[in-house]
């Protein structure tokens, strides 16, 4: 890791008796895309709010670009951009006006902020709707303008809280591409998400956070290499999944058995899985197998193994609250 632009030690946040963040420590290097991955209520948003100055931590130390909180918080805020989990620009103002207003909040004079606003509207394909009120934008357009607003003052670190949640596939793809471009330009990105595929596609390093604690932190390559050591198999059964899982669980206790979102059984083992004994056991138990194929190891497998939380649980939790 290059020199740390973000240094967090023992960050803790209590809301009364509720511990939202519990002794979280990590460092983010310059130019990194750092992913914070966890289910809703895990403490992702609270952590991001503490790092951006919206929440006063109960304990711990935060340093952004060498500027220690809380003493230098305002100074640090001048170097960071924040994209909250909801697009929160001013509905009655147009896109151009919103960007100019945000630029003025960072002290940019008119001769600088207006060309910069136009540049960002172009970059985010919003130039044609730049004079339309923000309230009239589509969800994807709102998201893009919110990211543009966070970049208006050319921040060194960009914090994004669930940037693609609730928007259409095309806009999400465009946002991911833009984030990649920004990172190539040298912007350090801190990303919270509960989309595992998004973290896998974008991030250099990833931290898994569950119940306010970081349970694993590593480079994407290391995490995937860990998954490569195991073997996974997908079995499509005749619908009797419970019985199939029970039969295999009793006969092969070393194999982890889970259901995937498509309704198949996902079998994972530390050693190579042999197909024939599995099929034989299911056949003996009267369970028909329609399809069996090797599953590509993914970050999702690592996440499930490390946290014990199924990816579908994270997706189901989406919309039930913030993390």
């Amino acid at each position: 890791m290059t020199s740390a632009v973000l240094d967090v030690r023992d960050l803790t946040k209590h809301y009364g008796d509720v511990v939202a963040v519990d002794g979280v420590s990590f460092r983010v290097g310059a130019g990194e895309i750092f992913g914070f991955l966890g289910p809703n209520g895990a403490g992702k948003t609270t952590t991001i709010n503490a790092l951006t100055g919206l929440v006063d931590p109960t304990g711990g130390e935060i340093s952004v670009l060498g500027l220690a909180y809380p003493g230098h918080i305002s100074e640090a805020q001048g170097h960071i951009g924040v994209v909250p989990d909801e697009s929160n620009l001013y509905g009655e103002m147009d896109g151009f006006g919103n960007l100019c207003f945000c630029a003025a909040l960072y002290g940019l004079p008119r001769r600088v902020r207006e060309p910069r606003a136009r540049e960002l509207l172009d970059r985010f394909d919003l130039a044609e709707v730049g004079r339309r009120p923000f309230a009239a934008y589509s969800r994807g357009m709102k998201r893009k303008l919110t990211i543009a607003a966070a970049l208006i003052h050319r921040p060194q670190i960009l914090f994004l809280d669930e940037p693609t949640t609730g928007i259409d596939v095309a806009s999400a793809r465009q946002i991911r591409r833009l984030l990649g471009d920004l990172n190539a330009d040298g912007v350090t990105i801190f990303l919270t998400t509960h989309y595992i595929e998004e973290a896998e596609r974008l991030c250099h390093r990833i931290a898994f956070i569950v119940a306010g604690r970081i349970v694993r932190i590593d480079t994407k390559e290391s995490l995937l290499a860990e998954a490569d050591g195991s073997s996974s198999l997908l079995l499509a059964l005749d619908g009797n999944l419970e019985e199939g899982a029970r039969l295999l669980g009793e006969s092969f206790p070393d194999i982890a058995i889970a259901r995937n979102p498509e309704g198949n059984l996902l079998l994972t083992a530390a050693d190579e899985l042999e197909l024939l004994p599995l099929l034989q056991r299911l056949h003996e138990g009267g369970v028909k197998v329609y399809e069996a194929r090797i599953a590509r190891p993914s970050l999702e497998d690592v996440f499930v193994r490390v946290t014990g939380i199924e990816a579908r649980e994270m997706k189901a939790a989406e919309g039930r609250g913030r993390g």
Partner: protein
Amino acid sequence: MKAAIAFWAILAKDMRNYYLKPPNISWGIIFPVSWTLMFFLRSRGAPMDIKDLLPGVMAMSVLFGTTSMLAVTITFEKRHRSFERLLLAPIGLNLLMLAKTSGAITFGVINSAVPIVLASFLVDLSGTTWLTVLPAVLFIAMSSTFLGLFIAVSVSEVFEAQTFSNFFRFPMVFLCGLFLPLGDLPAVIRPLSYVLPLTYGNDLLRHAFLGAGVLNPAVSWVMLPLFTALLFAMSIRNAKRSWIS
């Protein structure tokens, strides 16, 4: 310089988006006219002392204009989370709050001018001490605005801001000597008048327009800025507790 740009941007945005909207401008005109008309009807055709009414109507226009607008706009922005943008700006909470309240203060001062303009067509205002009127109005606007800020910090919904504002405002109309002389208040209630900043602002206006008030102007000039500073400090302390908790 950067802080000045941010300050001006917040002030200009609030004036444009909230305070100078047609419904607010018409409110600023209708409110003092309605109150004056009410007193006119109550007098049943007897000659009415417009000059005697003017300080009360002015003070009330400022009080109602500033408290409700600020409390509602901040609560509205908090609800839509656009207020977070301001909290994330590198300007510090004190400057942010001054910028947010400056719009309301300006709106309050402009509101106070409406009764003066209307009264100038009906009575001779040549004996008025204008050097007292302007700072007195400014301090009434500031203390009322900071009361609105105190309310905004204490509530989370727009309707709560409205009802909580009225909890303070309507008693103030009767306790601060706006239309009912302080001397006519029951002795038990009177101490309450002296813990309300509007009492001192209204009394200064009575000195300026009528040449006579109940209190020594020196006392009012001390108490009014004191209340203003106290309300601002309390609001900032509460804002730190509830917005950056």
